């Protein structure tokens, strides 16, 4: 970006040399952990609830090294995406913030976290949004979660030109991946798998009673899916801390019960989703066996997403009772992986395309390329108009023609004088990206490459 094409170097303003240019073009950094790099306890420890996210992005945004920031936190990942003025300092800042608030020392965190810069960070965020980085590739929930995270950060006013554009590109890329590949076609996420399985046991999920034991995130997701598939079904929520059971039950219009009531409620429940942190089985064979007779053998479907398991696997041996734990559910999902592998090649290609386009835009979102672009555009217009005019004025001498060309060159330079000065230094506390982006839009320098 430093060598300028064919400029006449007589005006210093027209030739932005190295010290004058934006010392740090927007540097995209992503720090994250996911289900592949960190165990669930660590992910839980790091996870941000929505309120915390708003708070965290506000604090990080105030750091002088960070221009824009956004946090994505789901049960499988925590990702901190930021635009840094000074990447290495900003990374340290994020690590120290996590140490302060989560009590995880950077040394431990660094063994599990990945740090991506530039196009690697862009690719990662595109892949996450397109569900290519999910535990179950292609699961559809992640895009919604990323959108929520983005919205939260926008509301906290912590994002700017670069992240806004990056995320919009991420969403459109995800959409393309969804519509142009078969990646999202089948039963994918754990909760989808659970619902699909439930449909193989129950003819219809309408009016079925769901008993939620423990109020984990995965359980919530599964319930969300189940309730989407059940009309007028009942929901019972049991939890060790009764208050959170009440809160969750309220959210899904269910009823909170105490853990001790579970055996009694097994009589009316049809689908039991368990995700407690208990070390022992929460539901045992001896509890289920007598219940089956009272249920007149109506099927009972246990979904055990807890590790260690909550539901005695021996219950699966009881007639008309079916137990699926998280491994079984993943087995259900694995079936689709082969076909999805071929589709993911296509998906990765779409992501690569988007990354290249975005990086092109990002590299142009700099003072030098913007000024060059501006000058090229104005020069081109001037040259075209001069050529047209001179073509009609045959009687002019060569000197006259030279004078007219010189005049237009000078006009272009004068036009560009103030914008160039401003773009080089829009003010010490201002975010250059905003003005660069605006200038590029104003003069349509990205050629509708949106």
């Amino acid at each position, binding site marked *: 970006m430093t060598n300028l094409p064919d400029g006449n170097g007589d005006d210093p303003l027209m030739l932005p040399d190295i010290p004058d240019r934006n010392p740090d073009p927007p540097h995209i950094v992503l720090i994250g952990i996911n289900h592949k790099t960190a165990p669930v306890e660590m992910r839980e420890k790091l996870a941000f609830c929505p309120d915390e996210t708003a708070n965290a992005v506000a604090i990080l945004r105030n750091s002088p090294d960070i221009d824009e920031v956004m946090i994505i936190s789901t049960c499988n990942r925590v990702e901190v995406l930021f635009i840094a003025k000074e990447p290495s300092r900003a990374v340290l800042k994020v690590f120290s913030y996590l140490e302060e608030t989560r009590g995880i020392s950077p040394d431990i965190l660094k063994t599990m976290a990945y740090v991506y810069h530039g196009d690697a960070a862009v690719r990662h965020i595109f892949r996450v949004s397109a569900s290519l980085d999910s535990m179950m590739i292609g699961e559809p929930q992640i895009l919604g979660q990323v959108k929520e995270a983005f919205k939260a950060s926008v509301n906290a006013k912590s994002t700017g030109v670069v992240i806004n554009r990056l995320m919009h590109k991420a969403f459109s890329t995800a959409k393309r991946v969804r519509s142009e590949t078969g990646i999202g076609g089948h039963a994918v996420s754990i909760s989808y798998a659970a619902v699909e*399985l439930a*449909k*193989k*046991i*129950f*003819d219809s999920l309408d009016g079925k009673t769901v008993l939620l034991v423990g109020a984990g995130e995965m359980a919530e997701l599964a319930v969300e899916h189940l309730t989407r598939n059940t009309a007028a079904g009942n929901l019972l929520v049991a939890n060790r801390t009764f208050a959170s059971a009440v809160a969750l039950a309220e959210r899904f219009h269910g009823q909170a019960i105490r853990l001790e009531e579970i055996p009694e409620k097994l009589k009316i429940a049809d689908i039991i989703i368990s995700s407690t942190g208990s070390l022992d089985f929460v539901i045992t064979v001896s509890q289920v066996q007598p219940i089956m*007779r009272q*249920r*007149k*053998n*109506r*099927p009972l479907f246990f979904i055990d997403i807890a590790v260690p398991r909550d539901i005695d696997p021996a219950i*699966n041996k009881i*007639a*008309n009772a*079916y137990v*699926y734990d998280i491994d*079984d559910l993943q*087995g*259900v999902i694995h*079936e689709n992986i082969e076909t999805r592998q071929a589709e993911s090649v296509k998906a990765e290609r779409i992501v690569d395309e988007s990354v290249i386009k975005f990086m092109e835009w990002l590299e142009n979102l700099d003072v030098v390329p913007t000024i060059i672009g501006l000058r090229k555009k104005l020069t081109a217009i001037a040259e075209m108009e001069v050529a047209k005019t001179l073509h009609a004025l045959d009687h002019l001498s060569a000197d006259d023609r030279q004078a007219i060309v010189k005049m237009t060159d000078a006009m272009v330079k004068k036009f560009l004088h103030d914008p160039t000065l401003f773009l080089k230094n829009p003010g010490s506390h201002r975010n250059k990206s905003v003005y660069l982006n605006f200038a590029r839009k104003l003069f349509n320098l990205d050629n509708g490459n949106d």
Partner: protein
Amino acid sequence: MASLHFIIILFYLFSSAGYAIFLFAQKEIFHQISYRLLMAGFVAHTAWVGYEAVRLGTIPAHNLHHTLCFAAWCLAGVYLLVKYRFRLNMLGLFAAPLALVIMIAAFFIPEATAQPSQIFKSLWLVVHIVIIFIAEASMALACGTGILYLIQEHAVKTKSNRFFLKRLPSLEFLDRTGYVFIAAGFTLLTIGLITGFIYAQLVWGRFWSWNNKEIWSVITWLIYAALLHERLVAGWRGRRAAIMSIIGFAALLFTFLGVNLLMEGHHDEFTRW
């Protein structure tokens, strides 16, 4: 009528093959084709039944050849009727080959030349035969549904066989459909037995003669009665109901064929060959 018989076999054969392809390919088009082929076979089969009925002046069920053909006709008819009402596509995989096998067996059994005796020409007998055969077809489909249930239950329990898990309907649906088949079949079986007793009274002057056929009929009836009773009272669902419907059908088959072929009894002439 051998050529018409052959055409029916071909239709059922192609329908069965179509259902087999449907099982693997899971494309709706194969099911549609198989269903239409079965329907075409049934139309041809109906023509055969009509022709024989006119020729004999009574229902064509007086020898083993006829009996088997008639049973297959009832089976195809009941399946088509049920399919029209419920989404039970995979049961065609059971019904079509079963009808095919019965028709092939009948093809190789020579038609007895003897004309039906006068006692066959009674309205009670016609009602008895038609109802019993429809009941048997219903029980055959209950058995098929029971088999599908056991396959699907195995797939869900062992978590290993995704092939059937994907293709078969839900356990609850199979269980309930099996129950509907058995409830309908049991009702018809009861009516069929009653008409049989009335007919026996008319022909032999007594309702009950401790004949092997009568005894086995009642045993079969009791098995199904027990199944229904336990389901309603004790909640015999799922696996146990499925197994019972298979056992019941085995007893039914024995009553239908085994008793006539292996034991002496007054239904012998129906299966003579």
